[in-house]
C-alpha cells in the first residue's frame, strides 16, 4: 500500500461495512448502482452492474482456494481469484460444507428480470 500515507488503504465508501478487522469482505449497507465508481480500501473501483443491500464486495484481492472471512469467521472458499471491490457471491465463493441452491439460472433461462426491484 501507500508508504507515505498509511491511512490511504482505509479510505472506503461509507456504504461498505466492515464487520470484523479480520474480514476480507465488506457488506453493503446500501445498494451500489451500475456505473458508479467508489473507493474500496483506498482503490477506485468501477461497478458495471448493480449490487444490492446485504451483498458483499472484496475488501482486498482474494486468491483462489483461500478462505473468505466475514464476522471474522470463514464463510467458504474462493473458487477463483477475486479482485479488490469485486462482488463476492455464488460465482466466486463456495461453501466448505453444503452446496448452495439458487434460482439465478432459472431466472436467466425464463428471463424473469429483477429490473426496478429494490432489495
Amino acid at each position, binding site marked *: 500500500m501507500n508508504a507515505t500515507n498509511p491511512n490511504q488503504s482505509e479510505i472506503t465508501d461509507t456504504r461498505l461495512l466492515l464487520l470484523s478487522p479480520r474480514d476480507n469482505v465488506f457488506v453493503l449497507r446500501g445498494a451500489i448502482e451500475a456505473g458508479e465508481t467508489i473507493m474500496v480500501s483506498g482503490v477506485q473501483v468501477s461497478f458495471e452492474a448493480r449490487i444490492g*443491500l446485504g451483498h458483499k464486495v472484496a475488501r482486498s484481492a482474494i486468491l483462489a482456494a483461500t478462505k473468505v472471512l466475514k*464476522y471474522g*469467521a470463514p464463510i467458504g472458499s474462493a473458487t477463483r481469484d477475486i479482485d479488490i471491490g469485486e462482488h463476492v457471491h455464488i460465482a466466486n465463493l463456495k461453501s466448505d460444507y453444503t452446496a*448452495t441452491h439458487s434460482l439465478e439460472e432459472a431466472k436467466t433461462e425464463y428471463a424473469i428480470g429483477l429490473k426496478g426491484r429494490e432489495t
Partner: protein
Amino acid sequence: MSMRGYLRSDGRKGIRNILAVAYLVECAHHVAREIVIPSRKDAHLIGFPGCFPNEYAQRMMEKLCTHPNVGAVLLVSLGCESFNRYQLEKIIADSGRPVKTLVIQQGGGTLTSIDDGRDWVAAQVVLLKQAAAVPMEISELTIGTVCGGSDGTSGITGNPAAGHAFDQLVAAGATCIFEETGELIGCEEIMADRAVTPELADELRASVKKAERYYDTLGFGSFAAGNAEGGLTTIEEKSMGAYAKSGMSAISGLIKPGDIPAKGGLYLMDVVPDGEVRFGFPNISDNAEIVEMMASGAHMTLFVTGRGSVVGSAISPVIKIAANPKMYERLSEDMDINAGRILDGHASISEVGDEIFELVKTVASGTKSKSEQLGHTEFILTYKSFEPIGPACLPI
C-alpha cells in the same frame, strides 16, 4: 403494564387463553376449519395431516394441546385414522382443560359435525373469557427465536438485536430457545465454547454434525433461493448470521422438540431427526420450527426476517423483526420492529434489542402483535422421529 397469566395445573402460566381446534388427520381438516371460522379470534386451528401413526406427532400434539396459552381443546377425528385420540383426550382432560372429541363418522357427517363443534366452541369461548388471570413474572416466560426469509442484513441487524433481547430475558430468569442446527453449520466450535459443561459442549457439536450429515444426504442445505438473492452465498455465512440470535449468554442445555426445560436459561433445540434420513426435510418451512418451540413451551416467538416473511402462528404470538430497512418500508404493516435502522445508523444493536425486550413484555401483557392483529394463525406439523436426549443435555 404488569404481566398477568392464566395459571395451569402444571404450574405454568399462559399469556393467552386460546381454544385449540385440532384435526387428527387431513380428512377431518375441512370440518375443523369450518368450526373455527365464526370464532377465529378466540379459537385457533392446529392439526396433524397424516393417517399413519407417528410417536413424534403424537407427542407434539399432546404438548401443544396442553400448552400454557391453550385453555380448552376440541379434537376433530374422522374416525378411522391411526392417531391415538384416546390418549390425547385423556392427557388434555388430566391437565384440567375442557376437552371434547368429535368423531365425524359417528356424529352424522360434515354439517352435523360442524354445527356440534361450533356450539361447543361458542360455549367454551364464553368461559375462557371469564377466566381469572394471576400475576406473572418475566422468569415464567419461555421465548423462542427463528429467522426466516434471511438476507445479508439479517445477521448484522435483526439477529444480533434479538440476541441482545435474549441476553436480557435470560438475565431476568426467562427460558430462551434458539434452534435449527442446520443453520448453525460452521458455528459449532464457537457455540460449544458457551456450554455450561464440557459434556454439553460435545452434545452441541454432535447436534450440528448430525445436521450437516442429514442435509448432505438430502442434497440441499437449509438455504432457500431467496437467501442468495439477498446477498448470502453459503450456508456457513447464513449460519454465522443466524447464530447471532442466541446472544452471548451461557448455553444451559440441548433440548429436542417437546422437551420442556425445568428452569430458566438459554437452550439450543435440536430439530434434526435421529437415525437414518426419513420423511424428507427436517423442517419444511419456518412454521414447523415455531410449532416445535411451542411444543417446548414457547409463549412467544421472535421472528427476524430480511426478505420479509409475513407469517404468524396459532397459539403463540409472533413478534416480527425487520432486518432490512428497504423491506420494512414495503412491509411495515406486518413488522413490529424496524431493526433496519441499525444499518442506516439511526439506532444501535442494543437500542433495538431493548425495544424488543420491552415489546416482549407488552405482548406478554396482552397487547396483540402485528401478525396477531392481522389474524395470522399458520401451523404445520409433519412426520419425524427422535431419540430421547442424553443425560449431558440438561446439566443440573
